[in-house]
């Protein structure tokens, strides 16, 4: 299932599949956040989203999080 990062609830694992802005993509790539799945640590309502991979925590601003498309992990059995 493909949604925007800003829509992902806290504690879910997702893969960042599309970061439209070239520079932002390069910066996230360097930090290793595009290497595989990341944990969505916290989503602050109308605020930044904090994602984590192997102990590296990065806050992504709201407008950026809206542009980023993620693939939600298939094993996710969250209740509707």
């Amino acid at each position, binding site marked *: 299932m493909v949604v925007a990062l800003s829509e992902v609830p806290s504690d879910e694992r997702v893969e960042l599949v599309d970061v439209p*802005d*070239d*520079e*932002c*993509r*390069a*910066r*996230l*790539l*360097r*930090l*290793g956040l*595009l*290497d595989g799945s990341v944990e969505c*640590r*916290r989503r*602050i*309502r*109308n*605020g*930044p989203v*904090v994602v984590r*991979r*192997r*102990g*590296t*925590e*990065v*806050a*992504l*601003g*709201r*407008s*950026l999080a809206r542009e980023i498309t993620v693939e939600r992990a298939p094993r996710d059995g969250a209740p509707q």
Partner: protein
Amino acid sequence: MRATEGADRGLGSGDAETSVALVGAPNAGKSALFGRLTAEYADVSNYPGTTVETTAAALGSLRLSDTPGVHGISSFSEAERVTRAAVLEADAVVNVVDATQLGRDLFVTLQLTDMGVPTVVALNMMDEAEADGVAIDVDALESALGVPVVPTVAVTGAGVDKLRDRLPEASAPESTPIDSYYDALPDGVDATRAEKTLLVEGDEPTARRVGVPGLATDGGDAPLAAVGEREAVYRERRTRVRSIVDDVERVAASERAPEERLGDLLLRPATGIPIALALLAAVFYVMGVVVAQRVVGYAEGVLFARYYTPAVEGVVAGLLPASGWAAPVEFLLVNDNLGLATVTVRYTLGVLLPLVVAFYLVIGTLEDAGVLPRLAVVTDRGLGRIGLSGRAVVPLIVGMGCVTMAVVSTRMVGSRRERLITTALLGLAIPCSAQIGVISGLLAELGVVWWGGYLAVLLGVLGTAGVALDRTLPGRRDALIEQLPRLRLPRPTNVARKTANRTAAFLGEAAPLFGATAAAVSTLDYVGALDAVVGALRPLTAALGLPASFGRVLVLGLIRRDFAAAGMTDLALSASQTFVGLVVVTLFVPCILTMAMVLRERGARSALLVWVGSWATAFAVGGGVAAVLEVIA
């Protein structure tokens, strides 16, 4: 030189001034390691043409320089540009890698070896890695990277001697997988391996410097067609990082550390916002109440008013003859507004020095603890409404203590654009603690309704000005990508060392600037230009429904904001006149020290914008408020 690439770099080159740069991610322990390696006096200065601070000191016969923390060698921000330039200039690099963040930090390491920069890796924070259950095979890492790797714990000094011993072994592998990308460069590019690497990564400053035909065009729309290459290079490098980490690192399952739970609390709005407010209140209390009022009050009211100033006035009167030519000199030295030997010294040592020390202590502590980025995250949403990101929260709070120091702290705000907006809002609508003291006294006499009205007007101006600047300034808002460092207990020695170095550097630069401004204003005062200004202001003060003597208040406000507010207590004004007057003096131009700082940090154009904008806003809003009050009354 370029033809013999590599041969002219390294510690064996035997130049008179061999330089080593300390490079690594923010909070990887660079400054602690720098302190351990040099342990002597360090020069803190701005990197030429920027507001980015760099530190350098002697390390034996070498010169060691600290660089701003980065996650890659490129040009995405001012700090990155500084680090990139430092890496290109250095003869060798000590790459500080956080052992708990191997997967993140090895990207920079591989980038350095791809660039052929002679490197030694300091694998720092080995103690924390161990506590986390992370085991790293150092020998395997060393052979995988092809450069020396020394495990260190910078805060205790463990491994630092070994690091110093192995510095001469700094090296880079002969070739790395990056070589295959060089084919994409046009034939006959005259560049070092470091420059070639940055070129295939699409680094524009390097392209301009090297002057690659076909790649760089002067001011063209698509200077580098190599953006696609950059992504391929970065992805390939990440693949190497992953495979090295898989080989050398073993992670045992571990308990969640207590600082991680604290980090969680800071990020959860329900707990994070109260914690952030408490921290900001503490910052305000230290800067605004303890230092700006009590310490500065004592220094000014007792040390300077009772002892220093009378003594200096006596000396000057005794030295200078009473004849005509000496009068201007005496005025310049000891006048009550900005005398060079009296008031200027008092401002610098009695006001600025305590504030600067307190500011650097507070900021250094928050920096060391890793709290600042988290404060930025929880406040990002609120500040986003006025065109700022969460990073602007600290300058705005420090500004309620001292706007001058807040202007300095705008350095931690991301882009130039955001810094300008923050500076403008600080100059315009944030009253400093000295002013808040006098203003709250006057408002208390008026009553709570006026208090509310005053706050509403200020917040309205702050919001409107923020939105207006955000809409009109060129460029767009920076995307917030903030790496959150691990929370740690701040280390007093580290904080104290940074504070001492930064304070000395700051005063060394600010004092002469302030002295020159003071001399210029005193000269204007002597020739009667200030009185002419009071006269010229008469139509404006009349338009606000205020007496002509209010012009004198404003002229005092040009020098120091609390003088303006204090000057109002001497005027006999009605409630609504007082209210209009307070709104005007709050929105009016920042004090002369702040303007000197805006000039230094932002340049003449921005300073002029802030200054003229403050005049215009103060009178426009003041006039509007006066008109509204007239209708209501």
